[in-house]
């Protein structure tokens, strides 16, 4: 169990990236949703020992992640949102090196895990090529492979599916979920589907605060029957709707503008009840948070 208490962080420029975040995360996949700048990366960097919070604690089964960085790093698998590689090194050399760095000093075991991961991430064929020649997707898969070295107890993956094509994304999510059954996996994303498909628990962050935490299905239940949609065709029409209702989101559907609103009661007047999904939950919470 990873428990986080009152985590706050203000950058030297005055940006308040995290405000008093408390959270308990049990083993399994945990999704962290939020728009850009919500504080997801700051949160994850703190857990990955790259950043010290101003206040607050984070413990994993009794281990103080903030004070005992070295111990944390031993059980950590971390995939940053953006990262580069040493361009002249090959994937297999690099993974071997990182395996040593993670304390896998038994040669046989190291070989096994490195080869296993190369196969799992479909990099086996190109394992001897210089990383500098990798495409964005290949690089991302390499990043995933390095994060999974050494059977990490705490896996932190920041926007892992960005830059992956749909097939790769499926593959990765598969891999992650099968590994993530018994360990804490925190996955940040702004793609709602990722969370829906994978995570048993989730949280939504905005402006450095947690605005919702729970299981995706429960969250959807909360808005079930309260989401309505209407197709609008002019700006005036849209403005009228925005003035009178809590608009969650606007979509283009077959060339028409569809507005989704939240309303406890039937708004009538051209609105149809819509099937609520996790996206509605997400946008509902975000917009509500921004309104407050």
């Amino acid at each position, binding site marked *: 169990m990873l428990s986080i208490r009152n985590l706050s962080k203000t950058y030297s420029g005055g940006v308040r990236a995290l405000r008093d975040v408390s959270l308990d995360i049990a083993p399994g996949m945990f999704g962290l949703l939020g728009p850009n700048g919500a504080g997801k990366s700051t949160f994850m*960097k703190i857990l990955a020992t790259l950043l010290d919070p101003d206040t607050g604690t984070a413990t994993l089964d009794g281990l103080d992640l903030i004070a005992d960085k070295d111990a944390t790093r031993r059980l950590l698998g971390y995939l940053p949102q953006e990262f580069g590689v040493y361009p002249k090194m090959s994937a297999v050399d690099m993974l071997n090196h990182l395996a*040593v760095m993670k304390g896998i000093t038994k040669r046989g075991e190291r070989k096994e895990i490195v080869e296993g991961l190369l196969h799992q991430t479909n990099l086996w064929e190109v394992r001897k090529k210089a990383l500098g*020649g990798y495409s964005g997707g290949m690089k991302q898969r390499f990043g995933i492979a390095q994060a999974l070295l050494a059977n990490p107890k705490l896996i932190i993956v920041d926007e892992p599916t960005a830059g992956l094509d749909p097939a790769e994304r499926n593959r990765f999510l598969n891999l992650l979920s099968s590994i993530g059954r018994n360990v804490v996996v925190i996955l940040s994303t702004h793609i709602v589907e990722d969370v829906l498909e994978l995570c048993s628990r989730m949280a939504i962050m905005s402006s450095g605060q947690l605005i919702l935490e729970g299981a995706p299905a429960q969250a959807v239940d909360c808005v079930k029957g309260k989401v309505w949609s209407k197709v609008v065709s002019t700006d005036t029409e849209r403005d009228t709707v925005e003035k009178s209702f809590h608009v969650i989101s606007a979509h283009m559907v077959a060339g028409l503008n569809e507005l989704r609103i939240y309303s406890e009661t039937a708004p009538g007047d051209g609105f149809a009840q819509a099937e609520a999904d996790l996206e509605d939950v997400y946008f509902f919470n975000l917009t509500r948070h921004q309104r407050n």
Partner: protein
Amino acid sequence: MFFNFLLFELKLRLKSVSTYVFFLLTALLPFFAVSTQGFGPIGSGKILLNSPFAVLLIITFVMFYGSILLAAIFGPAILRDFNQDTYQLIFTKPISKYSYLGGRWAGSMITAIFVFSGIVFGTALGTMMPWTDKLRLAPNDFGMYFRAFFSMGVVEIFFLGTLFFCVAALTRNIVVVYLQGVALVALYFIEAIAVITSNKLDRTWASICDPMGLIMNQSLTRYWTVAEKNTLLPHWTGVFLYNRLLWMGVGALALIAAFVFFPMSAEVLGSRRSTKHAKAARAEEEAQGKPRSRFGVELPRVTQIFGAMTTWKQLLSLTRLRFFNIVRELPFWAIAMLMLLFALIGGHFAGNNNGVEVWPVTYLMVSIVSGNAGLFLIIIGALYAGEVIWRERDVRFEQIHDSLPLRDWADFVSKFLALAMVETLLVSVIWVCGLISQITQGYFRFEMVHYAKELYLVFLPQMLTIVLLALFLQTLLGNKFIGHAVVIGFFILIPTLYSWGFENRLYMFGEITPYTYSDMNGYGHFVMALFWSISYWLFVGCLLGVFAVMFARRGTEQSFAARLKTARPRVARLIPAAAAFSLLAAICGAVFYYNTHILNEFRTAKQSRHRAAAYEQLYKKYERLPQPKITAVDVAVDIYPERRSFSATGSYRLVNHTDKPIDEVHITDTQESLQDVAFDRGSKQTLGDKVHFYSIYKLDQPLRPNETMKMNFHVGHTSRGFKDGNERPEFAYNGTFFDRDYFPFIGYNQRIELDDPVRRREEKLPALEEMAPPGDPYYSNINLFTSDSEWVTFHALVSTSADQIAIAPGDLKRSWTENGRRYFDYSMGDTRINNFFSFLSGSFSEKSDQWKNVKLDIYYQPGHEFNLDKMMDASKTGLEYYQKNFSDYQFDEFRVLEFPRYRRFAQSFPGTVPFSEDIGFIERLKKPDDIDLLYFVTAHELAHQWWGHQLIGSATQGSNMMAESLAEYSALKVMEKKYGEDMTRKFLRYELDGYLRGRAGESRHEPPLVLVQREPYVWYQKGSMTMFALADYIGEDKVNLALRNFLEKNRYAQGPFPDTRGFVAALREQTPPELQYVVTDMFESIVLYDNRAVSATYIETPDKKYKVTLKVASLKKKADGSGNETPMTIHDLIDVGVFSGSKEHLKRLNLHKEWISQENSTFEFVVDEQPTFAGIDPYNKLIDRNPGDNLTSVEKQ
């Protein structure tokens, strides 16, 4: 359109900080060169620091080092579009190639001119600084500055910049642009080294082909006098014009090439990139196969082990990773290849010791290969220190790297180790370069241990210290480029501090004590100094390393406050390491301090000068105080080579040859070796100024006229520990050599006075006193060499350790061993000598021979057998010639003694010649027509046994030419006996060059030969030329007769001593009336000729002969001491001649002297062979500032 691009380019440059940084960079060198004496390329002397000559030289220097700035200005003009991928936007628009390329080029050109105009700005600003020496400045002449800037700077910006522009446009790869810059500089260095070391006098082609102008300007101005250097710029004529035209042509071609070959379409330009992308994409598809979903993936279980062993393995893995990251980079290879090239070029010329070919012995080889490669090791160390520190951040791998379970120190240590491996590898390459160079030059005595010591124990640790400093700076500073700038600043700072008089190597980071390896003495007494100073700085470096670990970046926060916070928990863990290195550095520093400041007095060069100045200010008033003269020297000297010390007791016999009683004896203790003095009568010391080496003794009973007195003294020198440089070269474990300066000097010693005019001004001393003119009533009675002595009798009992031989002048009467020491008893018997003696001790080998009744000995270092036979031969031939032509040799022995290369000279003491191991003993003649300097020097020093040890002039102007010029002349004649006339002529051609360059660098005023004071180029080079020319005019026998007569009359003169008036008279006596002008011109004036062969043609006569018509031009000028010339009317007898063969090997067909009385003359010759060359004064017997144009090829009419 063109103007749009131009304006765009200029706006961009105007906004860029780099433009202004570059401007300041180019202003920096001129600023310091003008404002601070001794900083720039102009040394001390009378050349003004902002004279045309100086400005031109500074511009050339800045342009040379600034060529990399040109690459940085012109390269990005085109590459910018490709780096930022804007090329697709630009090249899909309808723009013309002319306006795109033209605009970018013109914009860069204007920017570059602005950047380099920093030179003019820096120069002008430098003249205004309060600390500037106004005496060495001319008023700011901006017209001249800009003319110089245009002819050197702008032309070079044009051609070099355009070349960079062209390469950038055609390759679109910045690495290639920089490599091109590096390659150009390298090629240039090769050319420069080849030209300078080949020692050729004709540099026309080298000058024309010189892109940077260093060689050209050097050869154009090398004979310019101070007056010319202060007023003239090279004109756009001749070599200068051709050079500028050639390189502007190259620039124009590059510009045309860029315009013609630049493909103006996005498709072509992008093609290389898109294929690359396509390939990658394809590879990706192949790799991917069909995605299949998997369930229940189980990754293998692994065990994580953390402990010391893992840390070690992590360290190894990281070091390996970082090492390969460096060695897989192209720039690394480029720099390494350059290093290899430079090491090999250096190695090739290791056997060229200032123009003399010597065997490439290991100490020469290792110092030149490591010296040439050193810069590149520093560049690699500093450059890649930045790379390894910033690597993770540069490639954006830092988040993964920083969250690895790795100790902070291991990360830093791996960076250091990787660099250390790279440096070690390169040092090994240097070693191989040295060995290869020795092999290719046929030298097979490989001293591996010496290589290993020098390279791995002395050289490598210094490089590692620099690496540690660079790592520290890069860690501390917020940006790689600031880091590089600070490191470069550091390398500028150290020499600047030296030039400002900071010399203490306890605080000059990374500076180790200067040392010299000698075959005779090995590393000798420098071992301890090296050990402690190298260790000291290495540990200081390690301490910096510990600080670097404390402040190393880890995590994503960059603010200094955050880094302080991360450093805090590390401090506790790093305290032991910091303490350990501090302690080690402190111990080494303490030992160093104890040795250099407590055991020995620490005295900077400035402090030493200050003492000399104070000595002059305090005691010059005693210069003419009547003092007794030394007439006998009897000493007992105990040399302790293993302690680098000696102790001696002795006595002088003093006589009062004045007509008044003397009641005070003044003593100058030149080398601070005097312990006590006693006289054969009561005396009282009334002054004992230890600081300024002066003491005065008041005699109880004055010394009456013509009375003699005995003075007993005790002198000695004890070496303690080691010094921070300035070790006394006289004392060595093997190769002790000290002389009379360690024994008391009676009265004021004028030779202590500073002679550099700048240093004198610094010390507020008036200009150095001119020597008295010949005939001066006071100085006519003073001996030129030893003003406190008359001719003396000499006896010395010398002892040394059991395994060494000790040598002093005189016959060896007896030698024995007693108490484990060897004793040698030397005596001159009745033979009176100049009071000038030396003591040597060493483990010598001995080679002996006999010439008539003279015993010949060479005492040498075993292994230096190369030239012993030639030395013997020169001694015998010399003795033969001098005895036959001048007078009898006065001693029973002639000895040549080798001494360590801490000093480079050979010097003539009575019957003994100490000869530095560096000159002569390892000389090697490669080609049969190489000048045999060893032979010449041996003969020269032997000749001093006559000119200096039989004939001594008075201490007046000109007298020294009677020693040095006559020794030069005598030695030349001996060399001619051995090697023939061609060799002498070749030698004299170098003498002419040396004389003209010597007068060009004159810092006071040039005297005529017979009034020479302190100007070696006059008494050596001009002296030998003049004497030789006179012999050519009146005959060798006549000159020798004049010398013999003069010597006979003045041999062992007691005072008044002879001066050059008598010498000139003796020459005139043998000179026919019509040639008296030669003596006047050459000896008594400064006369320069400008002889020129205008044209030469021939026609074949019916009787198969060749009739040659030669047109010549002759000008004769008289120069004053500053080099201002006035024309003279000519009525001179000058050689004219016709030759066959090549210029290098002329064969004389007809050579005779003609009276020339007008500027233009025509001569006709009839010769038997087909002529190739003809000319006037073809052998350069006369002093001619353009010696190259005296010959011309003979064309068929």
